[in-house]
């Protein structure tokens, strides 16, 4: 199973290192001045049509508000690329430092190395060939300047997204390691999904049997399962053991057993009520 992947990596690495650098990158510093989003698009549509097309297909172009060129790059052309490569350009829109998506990365080894070393990095380097000792958000999600960031919904990464991100891992890690990690992540997330499906099944059956209106407490537990499932996912791909585990799997266990406890209690109470003719007790 590893051999074809190995070849694939080799080819990718070969292509990435041997292709001539984009002429655009060299001329960047020649262009001085401040530009608006529309001006960026107008010019880059001719110099880099693929880049603009990628951005248009990405979640950034579809979000509300739209993440414009200037949202990440600023207006100053000479500082545009370096500025956007910093994690700071991503964090604010992605929920701030304490949001799970940011925090799961920030506590990973990648995140802490970045935190410690970012002042030493040369941010004018392109996002490839391990030009940065630790990857920031953009290194993986916009690897080699590819502007087609996630276009799928967060819990169902498209195969293409995964392949692209995996390419960035291979700048530092062996394909054998990454493919085993990815396989493990897929199983780990599937197990978390099993817990959510078990919970959803129970809640569904309960609602059917009792023609119960959506109960606030049960709905609350179900919302928690979504949050905790997402934590497992973020933990697996951002390499945060803490999100895989404490914010993820055992938290899902807790949700599931509380749902079971709630339904078990209700059923017992309803049955008691049927026997004695009294109203159910909460």
């Amino acid at each position, binding site marked *: 199973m*590893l*051999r074809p992947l*190995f070849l694939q*990596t*080799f080819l990718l*690495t*070969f292509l990435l*290192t041997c292709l001539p650098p984009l002429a655009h990158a060299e001329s960047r510093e020649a262009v001085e001045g401040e530009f608006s989003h529309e001006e960026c698009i107008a010019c880059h549509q001719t110099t880099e049509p693929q880049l603009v097309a990628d951005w248009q297909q990405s979640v950034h172009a579809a979000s509300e508000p739209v993440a414009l060129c200037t949202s990440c790059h600023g207006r100053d052309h000479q500082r545009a690329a370096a500025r956007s490569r910093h994690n700071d350009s991503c964090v604010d829109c992605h929920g701030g430092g304490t949001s799970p998506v940011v925090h799961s990365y920030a*506590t*990973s*080894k990648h995140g*802490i190395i970045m*935190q*410690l070393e970012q*002042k030493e990095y040369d941010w004018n380097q392109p996002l490839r*060939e*391990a030009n940065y*000792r630790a990857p920031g958000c953009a290194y993986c999600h916009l690897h080699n300047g590819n502007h087609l960031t996630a276009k799928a919904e967060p819990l169902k990464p498209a195969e293409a997204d995964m392949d692209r991100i995996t390419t960035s891992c*291979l*700048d*530092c*890690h*062996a394909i*054998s390691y990454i493919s*085993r*990690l990815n*396989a*493990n992540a897929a*199983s*780990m997330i599937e*197990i978390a999904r*099993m817990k959510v*499906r*078990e919970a959803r099944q*129970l809640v569904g059956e309960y609602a059917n049997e009792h023609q119960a209106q959506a109960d606030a407490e049960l709905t609350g537990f179900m919302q928690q399962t979504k949050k905790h499932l997402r934590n497992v996912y973020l*933990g697996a791909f951002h*390499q*945060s*053991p*803490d999100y*895989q*585990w*404490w914010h*993820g*799997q*055992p938290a899902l*266990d*807790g949700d*599931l*057993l*509380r749902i*079971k*406890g709630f*339904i*078990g209690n209700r*059923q*017992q*109470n309803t*049955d*008691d009520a049927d026997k004695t003719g009294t109203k159910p007790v909460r």
Partner: protein
Amino acid sequence: MRLAYIWITLLILSILIPAGFWYVDWSKSGDGAGLYSRDWLPEAVFGYWNPDDFYQSVDAVVGEFEGEECVACHRDMSPGIVKDWQASRHAQAESKVYCSACHGSDHQNLHLPTPDVCATCHVTQHEQFVDEKRYGFPSHALAMERALDAKHFVDKPKAEVTACLQCHSVATKCDSCHSRHKFSAAEARRPEACITCHSGPPHPDDETYFNSAHGQLYLQQGQDWDWSKPLQKGNYPAPTCAYCHMTKGKHQVADKSIWKFGIKQINPLSSGNVVKRQQWIELCSDCHEAEWSAQKLSAMDRERKQAWSKLDEAEALLKGLRSDDLLSPSIHQRPPYPGDDAHTLLQRERIGFFEGQASAFYNVSPIERDYFDMWYFSNLGAYKGSAHGDASFVNKGHKAMDQQLEAIRQKVTVIRATGKTEADKTDPNKTELENIWLKGEYTEYNREHN
């Protein structure tokens, strides 16, 4: 006649003792690892965290390679590790430490370096690290055993508990703190080096330290400190994790540990702990008055005592419900505990540290889980706040414990008021309850896949 008793006893012992050793060896010789190795199968990825037991070298490249040969190829294949290595002391030493020194040279039989490999050169650090084992759990050096021998690790599907090994591999690889392939001492001195594992609900070491006066000073000025200096008096304006827990760079974090993980109550004034308190006071005296440090330790004693009085009350309430057979689902209506057979004799609900509740946080009744959350998350958060000097976390933890205790009290009152009668126990809805607790996609998968 009396002599016969002695002979018989000796004879039995001479059979039982070797049999015991044989049994332990046998139970460790399965496809997994640790005491329960026969009960589980590893995931392929486990080899990266526990290389001695599970690492399998890939066979994609054939041949023997040394020194610059590895570098020449990997410069293109995986530039990151080559750049890292080039920036490391390994590459700058007079006689370079090349890839093959740690990984071997046969590309089809490569290995991942364990602390034993690093010990080839880093003798002192390794000795200190291994010495930690004599202080027992918790310790870095024993962390892998701790994970593998935990019953919930054995019981749960292996892809689910992958997370455990990522931190517990601090016992089996030095790059948990000195990230590969730069292996920088300066990096490991920074508090961030610890927080990938020392974070999250049961051990918020990161938050409590960063919130403390020490941590605030670090966050404001740390970027400008000279991290190449050893961790000793005068070199740093404020202490970091390693400054206190690995004083003077000693690779040993367990020797001063009093409350340890914080999940069981101890006597902080036992003769052994009095010695450890003195060691803390000496360490703090790098900056603080001895009296002031002693008072801080006493304040922590009071905080811990208060925490345990709350935990003890909750535990007693739960044990009371158990005595009256009021826990629902009961032990027979829920899946067996990790490591137990469904038909083990004399089963009972496990409550508290000494009964192994630390491995029983799933498939338990909600009120037991409520206690687990109070004990494992709120209590340990307060403990870490107390130990690291973060009053906000102490308050938050105690407030949470108060609320959780009150909720448990109220639930117990309701359960006792509506409690099961003898008739309930033979009730048809008993099967309904078993259907909820024993069936379901994950619950069944978990039973069948370890």
